[in-house]
């Protein structure tokens, strides 16, 4: 059994299916995350309440985190492996690149958008997940009594830095691009093809990718616009 499992892990199709399934978990998380994030637009209570809810049962949170970390590690490991194998499979490059116009930028840059997202995530965790949610970083300058605005304050403060916001926007665009191909691709990889629905899935994938990029971008844009047009106050 284990020998067979080992052999199966080595096959191209299985490797890609692991990428697809781990990617699917990521997609699920991201969609939830982008939806959760939108609560920021509704003020501190909404988002902080949401965050508290997530942290309410730590066991569940840790199980979820474990699954996410495992998925990410597997996803990254296999995508890098697969990418290296793919480069090796085309020993010599064409003088003129073969192309019939089916592949596109999103498809060709999966490894780059992916890697960027990976480093973004590391950075991102130090931004919001690890810091103290009641500390000085959560205090909005100029707010009454220097009170902590919790997670809300943390996010607000960090996006006041324009370069950081721009970096976030770049990163989430990469996520969007990654998913615009990733979502349709995963259906094909796990073997779902339907004469009618596949066209729709391809469309939905592009739309979702764009929505994810837009949805995430909304937060830093919102913070900056609010801050620099209405002043620092909430």
């Amino acid at each position, binding site marked *: 059994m284990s020998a067979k499992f080992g052999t199966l892990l080595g096959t*191209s199709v299985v490797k890609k299916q692991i990428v697809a399934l781990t990617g699917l978990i990521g997609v699920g998380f991201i969609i939830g995350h982008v939806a959760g994030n939108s609560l920021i637009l509704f003020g501190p209570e909404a988002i902080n309440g949401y965050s508290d809810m997530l942290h309410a049962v730590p066991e569940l949170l840790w199980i979820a985190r474990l699954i996410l970390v495992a998925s990410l590690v597997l996803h990254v490991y296999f995508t890098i492996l697969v990418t290296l194998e793919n480069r090796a*499979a085309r020993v010599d490059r*064409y*003088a*003129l690149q073969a192309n*019939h116009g089916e592949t596109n930028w999103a498809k*060709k840059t999966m490894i780059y958008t992916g890697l960027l997202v990976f480093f973004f995530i590391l950075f991102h965790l130090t931004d919001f997940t690890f810091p103290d949610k009641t500390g000085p970083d959560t205090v909005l300058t100029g707010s009454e009594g220097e009170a902590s605005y919790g997670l809300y304050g943390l996010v607000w403060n960090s996006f006041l830095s324009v370069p950081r916001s721009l970096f976030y926007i770049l990163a989430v665009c990469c996520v969007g691009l990654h998913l615009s191909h990733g979502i349709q691709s995963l259906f*094909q990889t*796990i*073997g779902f093809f339907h004469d009618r629905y596949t066209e729709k899935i391809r469309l939905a994938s592009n739309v979702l990718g764009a929505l994810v990029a837009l949805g995430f971008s909304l937060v830093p844009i919102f913070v900056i616009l609010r801050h620099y047009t209405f002043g620092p106050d909430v």
Partner: protein
Amino acid sequence: MSTKINLTLKVWRQKNAQTPGHFETYQARDIDTDASFLEMLDVVNASLEREGKEPIAFDHDCREGICGSCGAVVNGQAHGPERETTLCQLHMRKFRNGDTVTIEPWRAKGFPLIKDLVVDRSAFDRIIAAGGFITVRTGQAPEAHATPVPKDKADWAMDAAQCIGCGACVAACPNASAMLFVSAKVTHLNVLPQGQPEKTRRVLNMVAQMDKEGFGNCSNHYECEAACPKGISVKNIAKMNRDHLVASIAG
């Protein structure tokens, strides 16, 4: 109406796998626009031979788009710019007087180069040998009408079975993956009732052999389908992925 055109060809010349290759420039003069691409190469070759030079080696046989022998990457596209067309069925009227045409062989680790535009595609035969058949010995067959085959299944099998084994899918795939070729055969046999008993074994063995041959993985670029002279659909890749998933869980 046919006219005559002149072209500049940049052709990959390579004596054998051990010797490094390079591009050589030739002038193709007075090419009739009704000629096929291979006939254009014939004309160039004839003039090379008259000068005592070795002609450009390229595989070909039927010259009507069915044997799968021919193929080269023309201006960056496998089998050239026309959709669903083999190189032998590509006509010179698709080019304009004065064009420069770059001609390269299929480039893939799974297709080692033999000479000039000729590559070794025997990997495809080994993949078929790994499971691209139904085990029935001569004389064992039941009466043909004993098993009706629903028309949609029969049609799908036929769509997939049209693959001519030319290798353009590999040539065009950014990953030099052979998924389209392999999936065409797996699907052809796996959708038919006759192919059911060996369904699991077939997909596992053929994919394993494909990997052994050094082809890349499929990232769903769909360039293969666009380059395929027979319009083999990537739907077959999905079908093979599904069969493989089921086989690896159940088998």
